[in-house]
């Protein structure tokens, strides 16, 4: 069963076609990798899915499984940025985008706004139902932090944490809204090989524990080949290959995109 269908997606900036007629589908509960050389348009695809950009052409369909077993198809292009999260889709950023001057716990709680029952303005009042909601929010934040192995830093400022921890906090903030699909934009950027390996294990355990589908863009091939079940390779905004890690490694088009074409008479 597919959770995300990207169909004939195209977007251009000025004369540059950043994404050109791109289609791919992501299976539910899988780890799907989107790779490509620098400037291939990966982050642009992500920005279209999370609605920061509106594509010129094409469809992005997100399939939401409801609690009573129904499957709702959402045309994501119809929604605004702040509505996407309530459908069950959230993301992290290439450069960590935390609320720096807020505590770690508060950073996670922002991810719960889509779940607020009290309503936005009422959440500022002092009724008991609001208080209860806040307490559960803090509790959830603590649970997630414990899962990520970040216990004890709840009340510290996000900005004071080391880079690797900030990336985990961002991951936690994405997780707290109980999404069905998390989009990770270069989660391993700036990490050493050891950290990258443990990140791979963490991403897998997030998928297994929380039952989410993961779509990631990544430059670190060891991570991509290690955890992704299916990979889509794009170059200059176009899909050049799709398949399992083994298939991708053998694909000549992919090798050419990354390493350049072999000269025939060399």
């Amino acid at each position, binding site marked *: 069963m597919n959770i995300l269908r990207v169909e004939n997606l195209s977007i251009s900036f000025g004369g540059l076609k950043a994404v050109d007629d791109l289609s791919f589908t992501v299976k539910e509960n899988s780890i799907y990798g989107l790779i490509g050389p620098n400037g291939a348009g990966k982050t642009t695809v992500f920005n279209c899915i999370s609605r920061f950009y509106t594509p010129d052409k094409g469809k992005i369909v997100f399939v939401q499984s409801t609690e009573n077993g129904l499957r709702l198809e959402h045309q994501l292009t119809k929604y605004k940025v702040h509505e996407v999260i309530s459908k069950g889709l959230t993301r992290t950023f290439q450069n960590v*985008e935390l*609320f*720096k001057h*807020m505590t770690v716990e508060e950073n996670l709680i*922002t991810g719960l706004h889509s779940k607020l029952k009290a309503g936005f303005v009422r959440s500022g009042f002092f009724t008991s139902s609001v208080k209860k909601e806040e307490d559960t929010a803090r509790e959830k934040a603590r649970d997630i932090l414990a899962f990520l192995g970040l216990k004890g830093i709840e009340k510290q400022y996000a*900005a004071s944490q080391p880079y690797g921890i900030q990336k985990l906090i961002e991951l936690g*903030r994405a997780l707290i809204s109980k999404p069905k699909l998390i989009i990770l934009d270069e989660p391993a950027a700036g990490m050493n090989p050891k950290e990258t390996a443990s990140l791979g294990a963490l991403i897998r355990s997030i998928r297994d524990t929380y039952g989410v589908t993961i779509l990631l863009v990544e430059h670190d091939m060891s991570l991509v080949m290690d955890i992704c079940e299916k990979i889509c390779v794009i170059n200059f905004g176009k899909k050049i290959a799709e398949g399992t890690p083994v298939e991708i490694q053998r694909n000549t088009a992919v090798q050419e995109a990354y390493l350049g074409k072999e000269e025939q008479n060399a």
Partner: protein
Amino acid sequence: MDIFFQNVVAGFETGSLYALAALGLVLIFRTSDVVNFAQGEMAMFSSFVALKVLQQNVPYYAAFLGAVLFAVFFGFIIERLFMRPAMKASQVSKMIITLGLIMIIGGVASSVFGIDTYSFPKAVTASNINIRGVIIQPNAIFIISLTLLIMAVLFYIMQKTMLGISIRATAQNENTARLMGIPVKKVYSLSWILAAVLGAIAGVLIAPTTDISTTMMMEVHLKSFIAAVLGGFGSFVGPVVGGFMIGVLDNLVGYYISLTWKTVIVYILLIIILIVKPTGLFGKVYRKKV
């Protein structure tokens, strides 16, 4: 000693009005990083509304309430009409818009309400309390406690509630806030409404001292800016302490040193404080990792 305390009490009274006006400034600044230069003009306009309501022979509290209700509407309209279309504009452009608002609101006020000066009653008119020779007006007690209460409520909302978290998140990173499902447009709308209400309260309370006219808020507005800078734009406690300090210092310097030089001396003191603590008394310094 009596005279000293008398000056301090009077300082707290005017200081809390600076503080109320400053809280409105800080609120908008904290949600959108914009300094609202028109805060004083907005307060003036709401005070005129209070006056017009009072002229209908209704009790004082009805006029007060009328001004507050008008401010809700006023803040909403200003955000919708002037600030929201410029949402994507730079911080500087937005501040220039608020400068333009000074002229628009001032112009509309003088054409609607005229350029005359009107007197306005005090909120509490009970007889004065005499504590060992220091005379305290019940009105002063009312103003000071109202200011402290508003500060406490704002502080609580911003620091402890989900609403506060969404307001702070919007201020720090609008795009990410939106992605987290925070309705940032509502956050902006709400902060302008609250700021307008705070301004209206400050305006109505200061009206007995300054009288109501189109220029009534000039000095208060300037001092509220200084209160906010002195206390630090980053907190709600800071501007209140800053407001109190300016009010008290103004009075003491005026009485003991020189009435003509009091403003100059007070500002020199403030500059010295800012040299020692550039982020304001309560401003936090975040060490950025590089």
